[in-house]
């Protein structure tokens, strides 16, 4: 195998694949990227951690000798990254156990290869369902929900985004839901063609992270193929295939409060900043910020054993509230995670000081958040 390629082209593709490879490489081959140079001048890079695989077709490659080999992804990426801009990179593998020779200008190095036969192929099987979403829709869908994904191992079925077709007040939607038990995020897109019959699937956190990175770089449509065990996202030349989490997502609909009638509207900027300031008094992340509500008046306060207490009042200039006074506490970080996803106006709907609270973007009803209060 021998080919030359622009550094800029190669680095972009390597960046995609190297973030998938297994860092704690207990299985050496999983630290490698599979390079296959084809007759027709196509170079294909593949990396996998057995849960996710990224396959990327690299354009503009001059293939002198087709062939395949595997090389350490992180090392290759680091070297190519440090080559001067505009460099042309030649990769040359004589076959067998011979090292992979990398040459660029006056630089050259030998990289240890591992046999192609050892490289695991992640069979995706049949993916009977197909629909497409705009790259912007994918970004929204991930951004509005991923902060709520749980990291706890016991309830592994919460370690991803639950993607499914649903009926939202008579409108067919594609819904993404994530929860860690303390907060829940739900985001909807109009149901794309082809998505009506999809099974509900749980897309793992790592896949979501990789997908989000890839979606950042494109404005094209993202083609999504799935079965009930695997999902593949095609973003132009990049194909991200992932196993799905084998578990049952909780019946989240039952925890979304319906009758919360105490409505607070507050300007996001002032609110989020006040939460940040008040919460800064305590180093303990789990300390609650208390919201004390009265007519068009919101008092935020927090206390810590070491520092005493802090408070800030927001008044009618930024606050609208005309229900009965209540007091309720939330973890500051949870509040900020949600307000980060909200534009101008935050709308809270409370039932009382101890019941789940609904949070929404007053202008964008497609995103909805539920927050469990803390005792204050």
């Amino acid at each position, binding site marked *: 195998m021998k080919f030359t390629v622009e550094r800029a082209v190669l680095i972009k593709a390597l960046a995609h694949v190297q973030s998938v490879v297994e860092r704690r490489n207990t299985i050496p081959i999983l630290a490698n990227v599979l390079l296959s140079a084809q007759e027709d001048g196509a170079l294909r890079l593949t990396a996998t951690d057995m849960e996710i695989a990224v396959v990327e077709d690299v354009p503009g490659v001059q293939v002198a000798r087709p062939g395949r080999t595997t090389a350490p992804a992180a090392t290759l990426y680091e070297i190519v990254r440090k080559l001067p801009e505009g460099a042309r990179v030649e990769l040359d593998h004589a076959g067998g156990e011979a090292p992979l020779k990398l040459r660029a200008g006056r630089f050259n190095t030998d990289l240890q290869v591992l046999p192609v036969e050892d490289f695991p192929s992640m069979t995706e099987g049949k993916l009977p369902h197909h629909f497409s979403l705009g790259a912007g829709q994918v970004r929204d869908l991930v951004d509005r929900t991923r902060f709520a994904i*749980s990291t706890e191992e*016991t309830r592994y079925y919460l370690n991803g985004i639950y993607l499914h077709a649903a009926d939202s007040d008579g409108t067919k939607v594609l819904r993404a839901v994530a*929860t*860690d038990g*303390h907060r*829940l995020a739900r985001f909807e897109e109009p149901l794309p063609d082809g998505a009506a019959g999809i099974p509900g699937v749980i897309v793992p956190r790592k896949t979501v992270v990789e997908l989000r990175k890839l979606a950042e770089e494109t404005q094209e449509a993202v083609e999504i193929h799935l079965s009930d065990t695997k999902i593949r996202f095609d973003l132009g030349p990049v194909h991200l295939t992932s196993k799905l989490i084998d578990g049952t997502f909780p019946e*989240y609909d039952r925890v979304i409060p319906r009758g919360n009638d105490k409505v607070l509207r507050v300007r996001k900027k002032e609110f989020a900043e006040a939460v940040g300031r008040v919460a800064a008094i305590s180093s303990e992340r789990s300390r609650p910020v208390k919201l004390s509500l009265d007519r068009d008046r919101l008092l935020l306060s927090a206390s810590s054993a070491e520092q005493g207490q802090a408070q800030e009042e927001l008044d009618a200039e930024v606050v609208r509230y005309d229900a009965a006074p209540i007091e309720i506490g939330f973890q500051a970080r949870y509040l900020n995670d949600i307000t980060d996803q909200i534009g101008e106006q935050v709308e809270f709907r409370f039932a009382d000081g101890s019941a789940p609270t609904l949070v929404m973007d007053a202008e964008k009803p497609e995103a909805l958040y539920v927050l*469990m209060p803390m005792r204050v």
Partner: protein
Amino acid sequence: MTAPPAATLCRDCAAVLLPDRAACACGSRRLLRHPELLALSIAHVDCDAFYASVEKRDRPELLPLPVVVGGGGQRGVVSSACYIARAAGVRSAMPMFKALRLCPDAVVVRPEMSKYAAVARDIRVLMERLTPLVQPLSIDEAVLDLSGTAALHRAPPAAVLARFALAVEREVGVTVSVGLAPNRLLAKIAAERDKPRGFAVIGVAEAASLLALEPVALLPGVGPAMTRRLAAAGFTRLGQLAALSPLEAARRFGEDGPALAARARGEDARPVVPERETRSISAETTFDADLSAVEALERPLWRMCEKLSRRLAEKGFAAGGVVLKLKTAGFALRTRHARLPAPTALPDTLFAAARPLLLREADGTAFRLIGVGAQPLLPASLADHGDLADPEAPRRAARWRAMEALRARFGEGAVVRGRGLRPRQGTR
């Protein structure tokens, strides 16, 4: 040889009197005389007919009636019988139908363990005012070491204990029996001698002669089987055992023989070890035959989760995490820990957390033991409130408690979850 002057203690005002008084200045004639009274400091405290006494305390109309606490039905057993019922021959651990045959007008009360546990805690608090060395032996029994406390209390242990017994009657509303002796064994034997509402003393000097004529079964730990074995060897009285040299005792009764002979002489060197703060609660079981299949291991794991859940409930704790313990056929110990998203005391939530740990370990290795523990321990009040991902937890908790109540009423086998059952032979 003249006996040393016997110190005298008034059990109704805890005054230490001159030996020759027939009554205390307070008017009481409940006087305790013993030559070693002021020198002894190991006490065994035992509540009298504990559950029955608590029930009588709470329902004074039961006071003149024979009261039996225990499970009803065909297979119920007497947990506790008041002294009126005992006079009719009713004893603890006796089948209920037999108890009712002996004492047909007995009032049968279903046990309410949480209530007894609360009363026991109140008593424990009073004990811990006497000495830090309090070792609870069961819900209604404890041993106390009062050595070196005389200066603190400005009274000898005997007087402190008399005051304590009065305080329990006054503040808690049940009676206790106290045994005071030079060691734990004699203190326990003493406590048995003067029940109920008793206070008995066994001194160093009299111990051997006092025990010599007693039947061997008096010794704690000598049950019916041991008694038969001893009798077969010709030993029926403690004095016979006491006379054995260590060598002879070992020849006859094996390596535990010398210790048995020593106890028969009233010797006991066990210290009083205060109960440490409970740091973990667990349940484990050793298999009849080694197991390696996941499905085979899941079954005992589920039963241990149920057991753990029960133990947590009894002690008022919830689990903040679970520890899975496995012992391989080669006796290698493996422990694995998982934190729980929220504290629980429910068997299915414990199981759901422990099972993934088991799946990772069940790699074909043969195991001889499985156990599950709760760590860290958190207050029970934090358990099973549910969250956005598990809104059903409070309902599951209520269901489990209801099942537990049924089991408490109708016995262990009344309600069994399918998971805990063994597959029948020949079926899967």
